Structure formats: C-alpha cells, structure tokens
C-alpha cells in the first residue's frame, strides 16, 4: 500500500490496467530518468536566477509526476509554479529544496511500489 500523500493509488491502478509489470516498470523508470534531468534544469535555472526556466521546469515535473500518480511532488511543483507567476518573483533555494525532497520521497515510494 503506497502513502496516499505521495502516490495516488488510483493512477497507479490505471497504469497497471494498461499493461503488464514491464510496462509499469518502464513508465516509472522513464519518470525517474526524466525527473533527474528536470531537477538538473531547475538547479541551472536557480543558479542563473532564471524565473521563467525554473517555472517551466516545475510545470514539466508536475505534469510528468501526475501521469505516474506522484501527486505529492506534483502539488509542490504547482505551488512553486504559482508562486513564480509574479514577474517580480525569483526562484530561491528553499523552493528547489522542497521539490528535491518530494522527488526523493516519491522515488522511494515508487521503488517500493515498482514491480520486481
């Protein structure tokens, strides 16, 4: 049973209904690999103070995470995305820290849920 605040079990069940264990594993691994790239992009955007790039990266990570039912990180990303909607806002390390923490939690939960 997955943590409801990290993973949405309904979405996971939808994924399982679409295919076999290989498919679910493939989707999770694609999410993890893409997530790592997006986090690297967020780091770069934070260093350069690029609000638009940071916001876009948070949006992409939220969308990707929703597809695998990782609702906890999606919520955090959307919160950050909304906070950076103001043109005067700048990305800050606490936002990236929160996203990274949620990503780690989601990845750990997905490891537990992922078929062997």
């Amino acid at each position, binding site marked *: 049973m997955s943590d409801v605040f990290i993973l949405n079990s309904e*979405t996971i069940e*939808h*994924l399982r*209904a*679409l*295919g076999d264990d290989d*498919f679910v594993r*493939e*989707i999770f691994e*694609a*999410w993890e690999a*893409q997530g790592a790239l997006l986090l690297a992009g967020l780091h770069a955007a934070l260093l350069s103070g690029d609000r638009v790039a940071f916001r*876009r990266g948070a*949006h*992409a990570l*939220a*969308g*990707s995470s*929703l*597809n*695998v039912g990782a609702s906890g990180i999606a919520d955090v990303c959307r919160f950050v*995305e909304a906070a950076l909607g103001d043109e005067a806002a700048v990305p800050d390390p606490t936002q990236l820290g929160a996203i990274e923490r949620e990503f780690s939690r989601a990845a750990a939960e997905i490891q537990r849920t992922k078929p062997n």
Partner: protein
Amino acid sequence: MTTVKDLFRCPHCAALNNALEADWCLCTGSEQSPVCNRCRHCLCEARTEVRAEFWQFASRELIERRRKERQARRLFIASRRPDGGHPVILLIDDDIVIHSIVDRVLTSGGFSGTLLHAYDGVTGLQTAERVAPELVLTDALLPALDGRDIARRLKSDPATAGGRVVVMTALYKGVKYRNEALGKYCADEFLEKPVTARQLRKVVSDMIGPVFAADRDLTSVAS
C-alpha cells in the same frame, strides 16, 4: 424561426442555448448534437433520457440540421481514409512518460493506425505540416512553440485544416481556457491532464471515428 423546442440547457454548465444558432459537436456516435455557446460542451454529454426527450420534440429545422451534420461527418471520415486505410495520430508533448502512456492506451485498445511522436512544438508543427495527420494531440505548454499556437496554425493552413487538434493541459485549466482554446485557437477539443485511458480513447473516437477494436465491434453490431 426559433421556437422553444430549439432551446436546450447545457448538461455541463446549465446555460440555456439556441440549438439552431449553436455550433455542432464532432462526436462520432449517432448523437452528434449542438454545443453550448458558453462552455463548449455538447448535448451528447446529457443523460440518455434528456437527449431522447430533446430530439423527440425538436423542430423539423433542427432535425434537418442534425441529418446534414451526420452526413458531413461521414464524408469527412471517408475523405480522410478513402481506401479504409489506417489513421495517423501525432502526439506532441515534451513529457516522455505521456508518450509511453498514450502509446499503450492506443495499442491496448486495439488502435488500428499509426502514432507519431514529437517532443517539442517546432518539430511537432513541422511533422504535422508534412504528414497532415487526422488527429494531433498536443500539450499546451511546449518548448519552442505553444501547443495552442500549433492548433491555430494548423487550422489556418488549408492543407492541414481538415485534421482535428486536441489541446491537453495541466496548467491552463477551467472554462476560460477551454473557451479560449476552442475559440481563439480553433482547437477541436480541450482536455485537462491527467487524462484517463477512457477519456483518451473516447476523445480519439469522437474526433476520428471508430479506430479501436471495441468501436469496430460496436459498429459492426450497429450496422
């Protein structure tokens, strides 16, 4: 002349509409119907008994309009696949996860066509212009070129205007953005993410006809 028989209440937002002046939906079931002017949802979404009652008392003019819309829809599908060939769908999204999921949703439903993939807006638009797919599923917020702009450009080009475009979004949610996508950007449908397998298969069937094994079974039973 409009009569009270031509008025319908939108099943989604409850607004009162004049069916004779409304646009018509692209649903491919037997129930093509008028679209709400306010929220762009169609009467197809109403309960079966509500639709049956509406059509039972509809004016002659409206019945005739429905007949013409069905005929136009059949002609459209026949013109895109004159030899009964396979439809082409183009998916434009920078999220690799959604590509795997859409691929699986289509193939597990027995999709009888080809799915093409593009990962940014510019490549997606170029592919759509070259291939003229029957259906483009595009994310709204894309690198290089916005998915809604892709819809507008495809619809304004005579070579691609006949294809259907569905804009999907996790960001631009709500009636305002839906109306904007369907109106200003000329998209044919608007989906809010995450999209379930059932929603996706329904919208694909609504847009381009029976392309799933289950659809074809139903069609053969119906005919």
